[in-house]
């Protein structure tokens, strides 16, 4: 009988009146990969934070290797052999790999013996687990995938027997993710225990032995992975059956509404982020741009929507050119029927400190409907906000509530409602469902397709391949600032993945 590495018994945790964890029981078997899935806000991160000592449970018991323990700080957790790889890396960017690994585990003032010891230990770990990283490389010069390896090495260096990974693949290319999974399997073979928190069901199926599903603070089920299906897990997560692929009819494409020609954009450091990109979007079609984050998609969207100045090129909106260099005004573009759902809703698309109704006019606050002379027409704004809340099922249905208090999915609905209800001719959307739970994803996808069916031109940028594939009528793949390929929606994930990794592109260049 396999021994339990971790047992959580009757864990409860409340924040004020919010019960983030309710009577959670979880048993993770030693030497396995155990997945934890759930929607945003289901309580996964809270549970793992309790295990890692960031929070203390209100009641309940934690056992490590069969013994009851109390974990009050992350140091307690590390002492018990629990290591955590955070979603946002906790690395010092301008330190070397080695320096990061020993940070907090230094033993002498001049670091001489610490570094020597760490170097040999690091080499052993790298060999044993296939975690090759140059110990003298500077962190900020490493790609994200390697930075993550450093995080794993950090945990192992501190003697972690149990490794918790929080949404580890969010920042990785498909190839990097595959490599991560190989590392995790290797760790498992060496007897380590891995807890993988994710909302990507595909990853759960690919790599875990056992999977636990959380919903609204409770643990609803634990399954042996090979005896379950993606459909069952998704259903357990949301408590009902969801459409993983949106149903959509054939599109009827019309005239070109958005035309991009030879667009080149540089970032603030002068690095070319978008390199001579050309494409068209017609009315009645959704064009999806796939790519690993950081390959110019963000800058492309920003340039088209007038937020970022372009170096050269031409963008035509409904046949008329957009001012690209110097004096681009996002407000003017809105008036011309270009709606934009930005990638970063927390800092760009919304003002989180505002009430919901104030956000529902952001960017359209110049509109006469919302004004009485220089004054805001509070009654009209409220009525308008209530109307959108109802149409888009934004919960809680309170236009006076501070926007930060809405869940990610509802925040995104606030942005979408605002942009779509203006009846724009062209809609550009960055990361339509990032940080959004499954139930809301379905809703958002249906809305986007409805826009398409009304004859609007829709341009979607997403790092979620599944999303791009299920939404798009045409898929453009971006790599290193260029469009490296166009495919239909029937393209396989592997084919797109290769394009996203620049493989075909590099071969063609050689």
């Amino acid at each position: 009988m396999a021994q339990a590495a971790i047992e959580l018994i009757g864990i409860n945790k409340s924040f004020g009146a919010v019960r983030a964890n309710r009577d959670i029981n979880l048993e993770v078997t030693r030497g396995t990969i155990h997945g934890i899935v759930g929607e945003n806000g289901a309580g996964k991160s809270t549970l793992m934070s309790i295990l890692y000592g960031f929070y203390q449970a209100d009641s309940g018991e934690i056992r490590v290797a069969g013994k009851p323990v109390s974990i009050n700080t992350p140091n307690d957790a590390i002492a018990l052999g629990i290591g955590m790889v955070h979603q946002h890396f906790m690395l010092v960017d301008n330190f070397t790999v080695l320096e990061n690994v020993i940070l907090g585990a230094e033993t002498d003032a001049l670091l001489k013996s610490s570094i020597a010891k760490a170097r040999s230990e690091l080499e052993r770990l790298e060999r044993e687990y296939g975690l090759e990283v140059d110990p003298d490389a500077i962190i900020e010069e490493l790609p994200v995938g390697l930075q993550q390896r450093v995080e794993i090495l950090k945990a192992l260096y501190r003697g972690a027997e149990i490794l918790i990974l929080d949404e580890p693949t969010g920042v990785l290319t498909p190839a990097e993710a595959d490599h991560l999974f190989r590392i995790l399997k290797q760790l498992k073979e060496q007897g380590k225990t891995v807890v993988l928190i994710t909302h990507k069901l595909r990853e759960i199926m690919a790599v875990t032995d056992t999977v636990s599903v959380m919903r609204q603070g409770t643990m609803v089920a634990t399954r042996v992975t090979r005896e379950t299906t993606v459909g069952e897990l998704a259903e357990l997560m949301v408590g009902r059956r969801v459409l993983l692929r949106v149903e959509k009819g054939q599109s009827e494409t019309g005239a070109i509404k958005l035309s991009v020609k030879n667009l080149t954009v540089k970032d603030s450091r002068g690095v070319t982020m978008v390199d001579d990109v050309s494409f068209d979007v017609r009315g009645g079609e959704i064009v999806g741009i796939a790519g690993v984050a950081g390959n110019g998609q963000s800058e492309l969207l920003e340039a088209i929507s007038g937020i970022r100045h372009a170096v050269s090129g031409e963008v035509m909106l409904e046949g008329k050119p957009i001012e690209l260099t110097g004096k681009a005004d996002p407000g003017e573009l809105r008036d011309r029927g270009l709606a934009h759902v930005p990638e970063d809703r927390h800092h760009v698309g919304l003002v989180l400190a505002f009430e919901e109704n104030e956000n529902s006019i952001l960017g359209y606050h110049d509109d006469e409907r919302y004004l009485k002379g220089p004054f805001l027409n509070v009654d009209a704004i409220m009525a308008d906000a209530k109307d959108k809340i109802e149409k888009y099922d934004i919960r809680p249905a309170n236009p006076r509530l501070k926007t930060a208090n809405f869940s990610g999915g509802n925040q995104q609905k606030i942005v979408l409602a605002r942009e779509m209800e203006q009846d724009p001719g062209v809609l550009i959307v960055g990361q339509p469902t990032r940080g959004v739970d499954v139930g809301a994803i379905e809703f958002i996808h249906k809305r986007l397709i409805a826009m398409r069916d009304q004859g609007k031109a829709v341009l979607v940028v997403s790092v979620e391949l599944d999303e791009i594939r299920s939404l798009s009528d045409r898929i453009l793949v971006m790599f290193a600032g260029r469009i490296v390929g166009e495919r239909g929606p029937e393209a396989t994930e592997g084919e797109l993945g290769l394009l996203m990794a620049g493989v075909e592109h590099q071969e063609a260049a050689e």
Partner: protein
Amino acid sequence: MSTPYAKLPAWADYGLIPLINLSVAFIVAGFVVMLVGENPFRAAVILVEGAFGKGTGIAFTLFYATTFIFTGLSVAVAAHCSLFNIGTEGQAYIGGLGIALVCLSFDSVLPWWLIFPMAIVAAAAFGALWGFIPAYLQAKRGSHIVITTIMFNFIAASVMVYLLVGPLKPVGSQAPQTRNFLAGAELPKLNWMIELFGAKIRSAPLNICFLLALAMAFLVWLLIWRTKLGYEMRTYGHSPKAARYAGISETRIILTAMMISGALAGMMALNPVMGDQHNVAIDFVSGAGYVGIAVALMGRLHPVGIVLAAILFGMLYQGGAELAFEMPAISRDMIVIIQGLVILFAGALEHMFRPYIQALFASVSPKSVGMQAVKGKGA
């Protein structure tokens, strides 16, 4: 997932916590008074009686409060646009110059009710100009507004010293100030208002600027929360990226906010210059601009809070002066220490007691905290 924080009911947030902070400030101040060998309870009685005990005291308290309302509002308007205007001091000083020019030109020919509006416009325009230059440098050149506004306080001081010992000084006078204004540039007192309540007043400088300050507080509220401009300022203040996205011009909003802020600062000069001294003297602002920062922070950038905080500081000024007079061991500097403690506890350490109070509320009545977050767990 987002971490839900316990929320307090509004009365605790805006009433209880400031009260606790203030009490702690006074308790610590009491210890300081004990250290110099005086009875803190008697000191407290003198302070409060000095500020509110007699009609004259109340009038002085409100006179000081008037000044602080203007400077507090000035700081708050800029702060809503995430601009830390430390230049209120200099903007008020230069505002005084505008008033001097109007009053010296017209006080012999026009009545006060014609000069007053002109002086308001001049004070606001000069203050706005002094806010405009740092704002322009921030918007166009990226020079940090905190640095430039501090520098502009010094430039304002130098300019005023030059003018007040030179061109603006009457020939033959030894004092670095303008000539005294004639009756046409003297504002009506508001002593009758306090006498309505039966209190007696000897001479006190409270004047109609107090009403102007209250009107400005209302207009600032209207501006920030009810106009398109205020909406744009708050958007930029919370998130410059969201403002860019929404098509709000960064240059325009920075310039506008700082000019309004400077105008309010400039109007502060009306109170001492036209309401009290009837001349423009060197250093007549005497730190009111910096007090405005404390007032704005303590008032949580809300006009109602600013008016209340301004009255509190008015009380400290007036009661403090009485205290220094009654208790020789307590010097003028001691009063500054007490004011400093109030700023420390009510401003800088504002959130020190909050977690404990939240925990207390959560344990006594869970329903009063965090209910919104529960509802927020929808979709």
